């Protein structure tokens, strides 16, 4: 195998395309972005993920030039872009509402940005046709935006923002208006187009699944700060905080106190009358330090009897079952009232499933399944 | 509600409708009467007086010709009266109901008979002249101290008008008054109905047109009084009202009225009863009330117009009867002329000429 993994963020020699240098943005008394630094590299598909109001849209608007940082600087290709107005930046944006010009045809919408650059007529036509082909919109070129479907509009918006071949494309909740099925298809289409054009994409979303699917790296934000910036798998498997663990996917959080129990292994005392749990962690904990244990439900095994070799096992009874089709999530109530979720694949037909409400069950997981977090 | 109050309501309602029958509706020029007289009339006769006003003969005439105006007494000027009589708009007066008609002034009666033969349809209310109102200080500032303020030269000579333009000149918007005036100025018969003769006025008027700010028949009263304009060709009484308003306001504006030295148009406002008047009986009562010497004098003392009532003259205040601007001396009287209405075809020529002069088209 001689394919190199795309990971410029791990290369200390790589020059970032975008640099946020201690950027703060205040709106009156409200701090939207709080002393934030971040590097984004060329050809990345970078996702800004967070709940509404976390500052992700402000980040994007600062990149587009609609907002200016109150403090700090934003660099694009090594150049400070703070004084550059939006229309002079080699950055294009795809708006959440798509912001298609209703008075112009699809063709003219895509040509709009090119016309501003006074591109020669032939080149302009070629470029628009190319964009129409890329987004499979050829037969809709003469229509007006209100005469096409939501998914088609989304593609027009994409084509229009890509037409000028920007160094950086910003996508503000690009799939928010689409239904789930179309959204999933479009996610792959986006990735495909990103790969074909080699453009750096920064996407803003509140949908963690979407971020995980499309992005090379994800930045989880909360209250104007970056909580964690990492690849989707690291974010999921190795969240660095309870906030990130909780925000990304489903998780069981167990509070307790850590005691060292061998090399990078800790024993967690967590509830009266419950046997301690064991977890490994590369971060050090002092004895008696309060900690959180984060366990993904799919890493918890559910069984009728106590598995003989399980290092962590607790007993409870089935409180609730969420049937998701391919998966079922069991909410199991322990003797002390704690609820722990366990997920198992529905490989059998429903009538033959093993557990039902009020069944006594055992839950177990390995020492490496859980992540031990300081807070 | 008891039966008794119901009956009472019915009686009151009947009473109102009875009072309705005893209304007299008068349609007169605006600012043309002492309003105390209206109250006095109601007290003396027990009639309810409804008093409306207009500010142009044309508006009145259109109401008369449309018919069904609902008025009992109207006040057209001489030429308009004559035409409306021909159209059958008025009813003959019943002399038996006008016991005060002996008060009328024969000098005026002779002249109004030109419009209303034998004065069968109308009585004279007021008469006056069409002349010039000047803001003395401003005109002298523009044209020098020894300018003749009563000459038509002031408003018909372009070199004078050029100097007056900046302080503002208004003319009456009444071709039937201005065209005879210009004819008099150029030595033609002011009452000419000959299209070619009338056409001669065009050149004179176009010569001064650029310096005339507006043709309007009532705005000049306030405009003169406020000092917004310095010269107006207008009706005697209106300009005298402007004079008094300026004096009352004590704004330093001094207005004078002069009949033209070259001869002024004499006009008459006549009271008449429409053919379809709802209450001719009440109308006669109103005319007889106006013919009373004291009442007529009160009206003239208030509006500063001369009237056609000889008996009223002893009750006139000195600043009315003694003012040659209101009651001209004999020499000036000799110089006054009257006009007769234009036939329809000539009227169209006159209106067309007037539009051309006003708008240049």
């Amino acid at each position, binding site marked *: 195998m001689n394919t190199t993994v795309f990971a410029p963020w791990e290369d200390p020699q790589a020059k970032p395309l975008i640099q946020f240098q201690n950027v703060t943005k205040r709106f009156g008394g409200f701090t939207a972005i709080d002393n934030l630094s971040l590097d984004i590299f060329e050809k990345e598909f970078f996702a800004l993920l967070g709940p509404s109001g976390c500052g992700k849209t402000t980040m994007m608007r600062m990149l*587009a030039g609609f907002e200016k940082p109150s403090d700090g600087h934003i660099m694009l290709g090594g150049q400070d872009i703070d004084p550059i107005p939006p*229309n002079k930046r080699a950055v294009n944006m795809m708006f959440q509402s798509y*912001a298609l010009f209703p008075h112009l045809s699809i063709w003219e919408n895509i040509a709009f940005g090119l016309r501003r650059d006074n591109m020669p007529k032939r080149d302009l036509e070629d470029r628009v046709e190319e964009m129409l082909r890329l987004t499979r919109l050829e037969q809709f070129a003469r229509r007006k935006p209100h005469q096409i479907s939501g998914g088609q509009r989304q593609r027009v918006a994409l084509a229009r923002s890509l037409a000028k071949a920007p160094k950086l494309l910003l996508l503000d909740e690009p799939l928010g208006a689409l239904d789930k099925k179309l959204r999933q298809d479009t996610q792959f289409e986006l990735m495909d187009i990103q790969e074909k054009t080699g453009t750096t994409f920064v996407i803003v979303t509140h949908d963690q699944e979407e971020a995980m699917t499309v992005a090379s790296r994800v930045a989880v934000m909360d209250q104007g700060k970056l909580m964690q910036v990492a690849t989707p798998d690291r974010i999921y498997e190795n969240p660095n905080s309870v906030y990130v663990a909780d925000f990304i996917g489903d998780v069981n959080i167990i509070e307790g106190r850590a005691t060292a129990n061998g090399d990078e292994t800790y024993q967690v005392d967590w509830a009266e009358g419950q046997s301690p749990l064991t977890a490994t962690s590369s971060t050090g904990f002092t004895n008696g330090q309060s900690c959180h244990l984060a366990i993904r439900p799919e890493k918890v095994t559910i069984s009728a009897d106590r598995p003989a070799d399980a290092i962590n096992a607790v007993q409870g009874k089935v409180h609730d079952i969420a049937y998701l089709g391919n998966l079922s999530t069991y909410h199991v109530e322990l003797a002390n009232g704690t609820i722990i979720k366990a997920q198992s694949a529905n490989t059998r037909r429903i009538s033959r499933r093993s557990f039902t409400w009020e069944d006594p069950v055992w839950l177990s997981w390995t020492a490496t399944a859980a992540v031990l977090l300081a807070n | 509600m008891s039966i008794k109050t119901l009956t009472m309501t019915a009686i009151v309602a009947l009473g109102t409708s009875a009072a309705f029958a005893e209304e007299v509706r008068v349609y007169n020029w605006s600012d043309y009467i002492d309003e105390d007289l209206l109250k006095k009339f109601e007290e003396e006769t027990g009639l309810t007086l409804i008093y409306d006003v207009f500010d142009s003969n044309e508006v009145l005439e259109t109401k008369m*010709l449309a018919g069904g105006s609902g008025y009992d007494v109207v006040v057209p000027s001489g030429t308009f009266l004559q035409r409306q009589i021909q159209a059958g708009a008025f009813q003959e007066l019943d002399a038996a109901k006008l016991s005060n008609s002996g008060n009328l002034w024969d000098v005026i009666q002779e002249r109004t008979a030109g419009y209303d033969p034998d004065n069968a349809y109308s009585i004279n209310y007021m008469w006056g002249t069409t002349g010039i109102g000047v803001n003395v200080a401003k005109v002298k500032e523009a044209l020098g101290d020894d300018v003749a303020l009563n000459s038509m030269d002031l408003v018909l000579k372009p070199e004078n008008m050029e100097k007056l333009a900046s302080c503002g000149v208004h003319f009456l918007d009444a071709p039937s008054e201005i065209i005879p005036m210009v004819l008099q100025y150029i030595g033609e018969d002011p009452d000419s109905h000959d299209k070619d003769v009338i056409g001669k006025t065009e050149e004179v008027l176009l010569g001064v047109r650029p310096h005339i700010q507006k043709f309007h028949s009532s705005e000049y009263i306030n405009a003169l009084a406020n000092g917004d304009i310095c010269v107006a060709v207008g009706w005697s009484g209106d300009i005298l009202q402007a004079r008094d308003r300026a004096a009352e306001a004590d704004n330093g504006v001094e207005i004078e009225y002069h009949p033209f030295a070259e001869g002024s148009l004499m006009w008459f406002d006549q009271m008449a009863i429409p053919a379809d008047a709802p209450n001719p009986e009440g109308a006669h009562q109103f005319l007889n009330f106006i013919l009373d010497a004291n009442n007529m004098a009160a009206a003239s003392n208030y509006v500063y117009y001369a009237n056609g009532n000889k008996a009223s003259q002893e009750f006139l205040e000195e600043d009315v009867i003694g003012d040659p601007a209101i009651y001209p001396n004999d020499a000036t009287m000799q110089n006054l002329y009257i006009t007769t209405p234009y036939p329809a075809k000539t009227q169209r020529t006159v209106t067309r000429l007037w539009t051309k002069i006003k708008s240049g088209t």
Partner: protein
Amino acid sequence: MGRPGLAVMDGHGCGFAGELMRRALLIAIPYVWLLALFLVPFFIVLKISLSDVELAIPPYTPTLDLSQGWAGITDFFSQLDFENFVWLTEDDLYWKAYLSSVKIALISTVLTLLVGYPIAYGMARAPTEWRPTLMMLVILPFWTSFLIRVYAWMGILSNEGYLNQILLWLGIISTPLTILNTNTAVYIGIVYTYLPFMILPIYSSLERMDESLIEAAEDLGCSRLKAFWLVTIPLSRPGIIAGCFLVMIPVIGEFVIPSLLGGSGTLMIGKVLWEEFFSNRDWPVASAVAVVLLLILVIPIVLFQRNQQKQTEAGQ
């Protein structure tokens, strides 16, 4: 019958005939309205325009004499002719007056647009909580009589009026400006009076506009001004068109403003109509002028209707 609603109606004894009657009545009301308030007056005016002037009450002939029976009716129609319309073509006054009215209407419409657009734009961009208040301020003048407001302008614009006094006091001018009784005053009066008719439709089209469209245009390389020109203006075009028609149509026939604020030289068809009617007592020619005016106005009204219709279709 599958529709329960109809079954219920039948149950109440409201039969098919009754339903038909009611529907016919419902359709009839707008037609009766149109007939009574537009067509009947129009035909009366048309009839007078085909008559001849006469010194009588009413001042034209013939009048319909029904006591003569059928002979009276045929006699009446035989006396009508188009002489007055021919007359309108013979004197250049009339077409010049029509043209001048259209010119004044066009200029005032452009002026009203220039003044109204920024106001509408400002309103649409104002914080949401201010908008009802701003809207109120635009509509507020309608609460006083139109005539009083025009008279107020006479007080402002006259030689000794407030405007001149302020300008003199500020030392901007040394002699009073003559504004009243000029075309300038007419334009001021028209722009002032008709401004709300321009602002409201433009405002409603701007208010609906998504602000991100402007950002998108800027993002794609437009300066602020260019974005305004390429996006805001085209998107508010239906509002602009509606506003322009709402101003232009009534201004063509305007009489009160030019006669109160204008000089005697302000030539407008409304004034010519007045002169024909009042000075010449020529009701037939006046009616002919009115009929032609109506026909001239039909063109912009039809265009306006079409614009409105297109807008409704686009909205769907």
